[in-house]
C-alpha cells in the first residue's frame, strides 16, 4: 500500500485539445500525487489543486530548434521529479516525456487523441513500441495496431 501512495505520476499533454482530453479522465489518478507537463502557460491556472505544473513551450516537427529547448526542460523535469508513471495524450512533448520517463524507469500510459480516426498519431506511433498501456478512442484502430486497447472515447 505504501508504494501505491507514493506512485509519482506525470501527466503530459499539450495545451488545448490534448490537455482537455487528459483532464476528462482525472478520476484515473484521483487521490494520487501528480504533476503536469504542458506546453503553454495560460491554461495552467485552471488545472487547480496543489499539483505542480510545468510549461515547456510549444514544439513540433516544424520547429526543430525549439525542440532542443523543450528537450532540455523535459530532461530537467524527469531528473528532478523522478516519475514512476507517465500518462500522456500527446503530442510531441508528451512523446518526449514518455521516452525520457521510460529511460528513467517509469511506466508509460498513452491515450491517443480522438482526432486520430484512421491511424494513430505520429507521437503515438513513436511511443507505442515501449508503452505499457496504449489506448485508442476508435474501435477499428485495434484491428490495425496489435497490442493497443479500446475501452471507450473520452469525448
Amino acid at each position, binding site marked *: 500500500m505504501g508504494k501505491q501512495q507514493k506512485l509519482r505520476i506525470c501527466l503530459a499533454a499539450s495545451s488545448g485539445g490534448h490537455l482537455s482530453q487528459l483532464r476528462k479522465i482525472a478520476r*484515473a489518478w484521483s487521490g494520487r500525487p501528480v504533476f503536469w507537463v504542458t506546453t503553454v502557460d495560460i491554461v495552467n491556472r485552471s488545472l487547480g489543486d496543489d499539483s505542480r505544473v510545468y510549461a515547456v513551450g510549444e514544439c513540433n516537427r516544424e520547429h526543430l530548434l525549439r525542440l532542443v529547448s523543450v528537450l532540455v526542460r523535459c530532461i530537467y523535469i524527469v531528473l528532478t521529479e523522478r516519475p514512476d508513471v507517465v500518462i500522456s495524450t500527446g503530442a510531441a512533448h508528451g512523446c518526449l516525456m514518455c521516452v525520457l520517463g521510460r529511460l528513467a524507469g517509469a511506466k508509460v500510459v498513452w491515450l491517443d487523441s480522438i482526432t486520430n480516426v484512421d491511424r494513430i498519431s505520429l507521437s503515438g506511433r513513436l511511443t507505442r513500441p515501449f508503452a505499457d498501456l496504449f489506448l485508442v478512442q476508435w474501435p477499428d484502430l485495434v484491428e490495425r495496431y496489435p497490442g493497443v486497447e479500446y475501452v471507450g472515447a*473520452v469525448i
Partner: protein
Amino acid sequence: MIFLTVGTQFPFDRLVKAVDDLAGEGLLAEEVFAQVGDSLYQPRNFQAVSSLDKKAFDGYFRSASAVISHAGMGTITMALDHGKSLLVMPRRKKYQEVVNDHQVGLADRFAVLGHLLMARDETELADKVRQLGSFVPKPRQADPEAVSRRIGQFLGQLGVPQTSA
C-alpha cells in the same frame, strides 16, 4: 445570430472570407458575429473581433442559434456539450492553416455520426449553411469513465511487488 469562430492560434482567412461571401449574397438567415483570431481578411458583411475573453466567448456561443467554425476539438466539444448546431470546415495543411490534416478525418467521422455538419472546402459551404437551420446534432455517447477505470486499474497493479527486477 450565427457565431463564427476560427480559434485564436492561426489565421483561417479562407473560412472568414467564404462566410463573408455567403452573407454578401444574402444566403445566411441571420446576422453573423465572428471571432477571427489572427485572420487578415476583413469581413464586409458582419462584425468581427480578433479575440474574446472566455466569458464573452461563452456568451456568444450560448446565445447563437448555430455555430460555424474550424474543426478544432475545443469548439466541437463545446458544441456537443451544449447541443449546438455546428458547421465546420477543416483547416488544411496545404494552405498552411495547420501543421497536419488531422481536422479532416475527425470532422468527417463526426459528420458521418451525425454530430455536426462538415463542408470540405468553400465550395460545399453554401449547401451546408442551408442545412444548418434545420440540423439537429446527435448527442455523443462518450465514456471517459471506462478509460479512467482502465488506467486506474493499471495504476493499481503497479503497487503489486514485481517478481523480477
